[in-house]
């Protein structure tokens, strides 16, 4: 760590990078970062994962830091607490201003002073909450040891902890007495936030705090964060890869590319008038609900390697505006307005070169829809999938009543040729199980799954010849996984992995033809030269490339239906659109249908919308709404779909984060689903009738494709309209959200 004694010069420093820092200063900074660099010595050379970064964090602001993975944003977070992990070396200055004129040179502190600064003044929340807790001690112990280590008054601090936990809509006693693994992911993350605030710090640094969670949970946490920020006068640094997610939350945004900030400005300016080519590209690449489908576009090229950042502007290899100056010189910050900076020579031209339309006009998007058949390819009728959950397989568990998880409950669904059906819902809603049932990879406990009229499981079980042999069915229904790596044999070259299915299904094919076919497909999906890629092993491919190979492999079987389970979720944001496009193009070519599973409504809309397909919304094992993609997105009927719609952040900056249209944050236990309409425990529209009777998709046939399982769709004669609204018991913190007293934060 650098022992700089020239803290005072920090404010005037910055000549080293050749950047004029006066422009990025704010009026009342709580933390100032000047020329901060992090370097690692690697065999290949020095790896610079944070490159001369300077930034001010204003008191009581929410600063959103946006960057793709590997852009250095986590390093920036660690730098604020001087917590870079060995052997990384941090240089530069970090100055903390507790109050008034006081200054603390963070990098010059003694270990004991640093220990006090962390958590008492500047605190941090990490991604993966599960791994941030010691699995063998209770949550209470985590709080108590933290309080003790900092010599705070135990009683007061614990009272504060309880208050924080209930601020975050949890039952303090229950949470404190739990072990980490007993809490759901969303609860763990909220508990971690409470733990980071227990010593009442002034600054909270959050590194992808919600990345591992469902969108709905992410948004709920965000809306709670806003309340916390108000209540406890926090300055929050929120680091994420998800620009739309923070757009509504943050006061200011800073976009990171290749280990430095390329654009900084007030959130509304930055979204409304992005000037850096990368920011614009990022906005186009991220699937969201407002940008017209025809305008979304992947960013070409790859993010640079930290050992070998391009000369001049680090974005020039991917930038459409790059010219000689860009290749030779590193751009400094240019003032767009007095508080909006862009590190680009040609920022004034970027709007023209990379047009963005933010005025929600939806273009014509029927790009890929093929001819759909009248007869379904796969047809599910009243399918149930129930799992028995036994604690563990000991001798006596035989006598134990197993818990039954209703993963899929009484769902009927038809998939046609050239169809695209996207299933969305929170994790644990049964969408993957339903998907597997569709392709015959999961045996239903009740109901039938038929492939072109032939019951799949009958074909499997029966010894007699069936109309369509089971082998044929298996081959026609394929699957690609979320993690493409897991479906490719790591010890086999790409060519060998791709040949295997061809050999098996078309043994008569000439080896040369086979080779030819594989190479042309590789070429087609953009992996060229194909001969080179065919000879690689999976570990030599990037995530996107692996997913392409997995896709080709599934397509080589000439399947009728492909189940794509979160197939793009693991990819970087800018790659998602690209891979989805490819999948749709290939659909056209191969005449297949997709069942696409996603927790993300934007991806669902992009995928289904572009192909003119449907979106099905699942909640606790039931299909609650299904219909054409654009209708589901633009005119959701079911209260739960509306919630999901709410959770999918818009780029619309005017809309601040509001309270969720939801009465409870956490999903009920699928072992014991609520009676009547399963959503009634969280539904803002729930009435007394909803607790007794169960609405169905077909209860009110109005003849359209868009069907909704909610009593609000039923006509006036239904008892729902007569019954009393459900009022929440105010004591039950776990359920009550709607009645929270937080008003929407006003932009100061």
């Amino acid at each position, binding site marked *: 760590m650098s022992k700089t004694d020239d803290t005072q010069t920090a404010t005037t420093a910055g000549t080293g990078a050749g950047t004029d820092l006066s422009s990025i200063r704010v009026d009342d900074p709580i933390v100032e970062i000047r020329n901060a660099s992090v370097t690692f010595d690697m065999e290949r050379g020095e790896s610079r994962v944070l490159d001369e970064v300077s930034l001010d964090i204003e008191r009581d602001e929410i600063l959103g830091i946006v960057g793709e993975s590997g852009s250095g944003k986590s390093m920036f977070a660690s730098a604020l*607490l001087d*917590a870079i*992990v060995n052997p990384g070396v941090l240089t530069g200055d970090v100055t903390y201003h507790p109050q008034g004129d006081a200054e603390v040179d963070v990098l010059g502190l003694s270990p004991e002073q640093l*220990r*006090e600064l*962390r*958590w*008492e003044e500047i605190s*941090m929340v*990490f991604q*993966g909450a599960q*791994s*941030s*807790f*010691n*699995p*063998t*001690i*209770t949550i209470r112990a985590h709080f108590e*040891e*933290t309080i003790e*280590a*900092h010599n705070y008054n135990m009683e007061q601090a614990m009272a504060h902890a309880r208050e924080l936990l209930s601020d975050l809509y949890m039952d303090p006693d229950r949470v404190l007495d739990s*072990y980490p*693994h*007993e809490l*759901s*992911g969303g609860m763990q993350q909220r508990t971690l936030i409470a*733990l980071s605030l227990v010593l009442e710090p002034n600054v909270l640094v959050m590194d992808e705090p919600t990345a591992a969670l469902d969108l709905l949970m992410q948004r709920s946490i965000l809306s709670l964060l806003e309340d916390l920020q108000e209540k406890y006068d926090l300055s929050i640094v929120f680091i994420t890869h998800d620009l739309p997610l923070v757009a509504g939350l943050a006061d200011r945004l800073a976009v990171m590319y290749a280990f430095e900030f390329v654009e900084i400005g007030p959130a509304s300016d930055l979204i409304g008038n992005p000037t850096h080519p990368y920011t614009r590209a990022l906005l186009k690449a991220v699937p969201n609900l407002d940008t017209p489908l025809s305008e979304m576009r992947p960013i070409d090229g790859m993010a640079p390697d930290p050992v070998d950042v391009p000369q001049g502007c680090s974005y020039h290899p991917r930038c459409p505006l790059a010219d000689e100056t860009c290749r030779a010189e590193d751009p400094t910050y240019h003032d767009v307005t007095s508080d909006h900076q862009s590190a680009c020579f040609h920022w004034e031209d970027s709007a023209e070169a990379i047009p963005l339309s933010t005025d929600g006009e939806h273009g014509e998007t029927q790009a890929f829809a093929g001819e759909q058949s009248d007869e379904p390819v796969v047809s599910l009728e009243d399918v149930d999938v129930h*799992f028995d*959950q*036994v*604690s*563990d397989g*000991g*001798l*006596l*568990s035989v006598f*134990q009543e197993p818990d039954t*998880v209703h*993963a899929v409950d009484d769902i009927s669904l038809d998939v046609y040729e050239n169809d695209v059906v996207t299933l969305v819902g929170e*994790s*644990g809603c*049964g969408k*993957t*199980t339903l998907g597997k049932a569709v392709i015959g990879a999961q045996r239903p406990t009740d109901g039938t799954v038929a492939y072109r009229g032939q019951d799949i499981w009958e074909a499997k079980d029966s010894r007699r010849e069936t109309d369509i042999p089971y082998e044929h069915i298996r081959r026609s229904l394929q699957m690609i996984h979320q993690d493409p790596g897991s479906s490719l044999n790591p010890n086999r070259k790409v060519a060998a992995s791709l040949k295997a299915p061809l050999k098996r299904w078309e043994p008569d094919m000439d080896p040369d033809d086979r080779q030819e076919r594989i190479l042309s497909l590789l070429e087609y999906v953009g992996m060229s030269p194909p001969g080179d890629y065919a000879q690689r092993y999976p570990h030599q491919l990037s995530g996107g490339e692996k997913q392409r190979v997995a896709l080709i492999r599934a397509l080589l079987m000439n399947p009728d239906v492909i189940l794509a389970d979160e197939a793009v979720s693991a990819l970087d944001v800018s790659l998602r659109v690209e891979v989805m496009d490819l999948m749709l193009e290939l659909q056209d070519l191969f005449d297949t249908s997709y069942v696409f599973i996603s927790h993300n409504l934007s991806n669902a809309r992009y995928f289904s919308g572009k192909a003119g397909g449907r979106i099905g919304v699942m909640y606790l094992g039931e299909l609650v709404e299904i219909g054409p993609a654009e209708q589901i997105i633009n005119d959701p009927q079911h209260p739960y779909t509306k919630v999901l719609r709410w959770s999918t952040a818009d780029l619309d900056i005017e809309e601040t984060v509001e309270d969720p249209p939801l009465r409870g944050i956490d999903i009920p236990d*699928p072992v014991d689903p609520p009676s009547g309409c399963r959503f009634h425990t969280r539904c803002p529209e729930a009435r007394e009738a909803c607790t007794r009777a169960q609405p169905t998709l077909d209860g009110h046939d109005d003849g359209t494709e868009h069907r909704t399982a909610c009593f609000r769709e039923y006509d006036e004669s239904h008892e729902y309209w007569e019954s009393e609204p459900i009022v929440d018991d105010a004591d039950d913190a776990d359920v009550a959200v709607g009645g929270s007293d937080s008003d929407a934060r006003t932009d100061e």
Partner: protein
Amino acid sequence: MINNYYIERTAQAVFTVFAVVTMTFGMIRLMPGGPVSYIRSQLVQQQGNQVDMEQVNALVEVYTNVAPDEPLYIQYIDYMAALLQGDLGVSMFYNDPVTEILASAAPWTVFVMSISLVLTFGLGITLGAVMAYIEGSRFDVSTTLVSIFLNSIPYYVMAIILVYVLGYQFNWFPTGGRISSDVATGMNLAFLQSAFYHAALPIASLVITGFGIQALAMRGNSIRVLGEDYIRVARLRGLPPHDIALRYVGRNAILPMYTGMMIAIGFMFGGSVILEEIFAYPGIGYYMFRGIMARDYPLMMGAFLIITIAVVVGIYVADLTYGKLDPRAGSGGGNREAY
């Protein structure tokens, strides 16, 4: 859920013991050249050819609690009933009740084994933790080498070397017995000293050959735990280093070693047969060995039974305490997100 876990483990333990007892019964009854023919041949040797079958059977019953002329299920019930009353029959070789012999031997075996166990794990865990904290240092590298080397020596080879060098060559340690003959039994200092003095070599041979693998396991676990996010978070939260070392690293690194400890319990008791013979240390293993050599079936079976029960109980206790130490045990693993 928790209660079920305990009931399950208890049932498993009881069932294992029951199965072993039944097996023992089957062995006595069915083994060719089993005790019945053994006693008969003894009598034939003594009395010539006029062996009265009744007399043989009576003798067999005295020694083994099994009356050969009864139907099989009665024999089984008799045998079980006798066992439940703590009657393991009478040793043919020593002509004393087996229960008495083993009761006097058991504390000594337990004494040696428990000290060995504590030392092996104490030493292993401490060393392993230190090695992990200064990973890559010279101490770490050399200790790793020594650990691997010592672990590759079988304990009985070490025992023979120790007894030969330190016992016979240098006469520093006794080569047999559990206490000196001139020390009175009782809880006095001289007695304890003598007991430790006599137990030193058996313990040493187990510990020297056993601690290495535990140290390496602990080292590996600790290094893994040290890389966990929660250690980093704990440091940022400003917890004192010794808290992190004990409650975070120590606890999470030791937990996975519990299985190793269970295996070690079984291994050590099993090993006591050869070990106690080498050191002529009259514990259970020693008597079992004698029983085998002399074809003294009741003694053999009794010792076998006791060793099995000891192992089962050891594992049972470890299992129960594991449930106390690791909150995740027995809760079904929390794989709710799997579907």
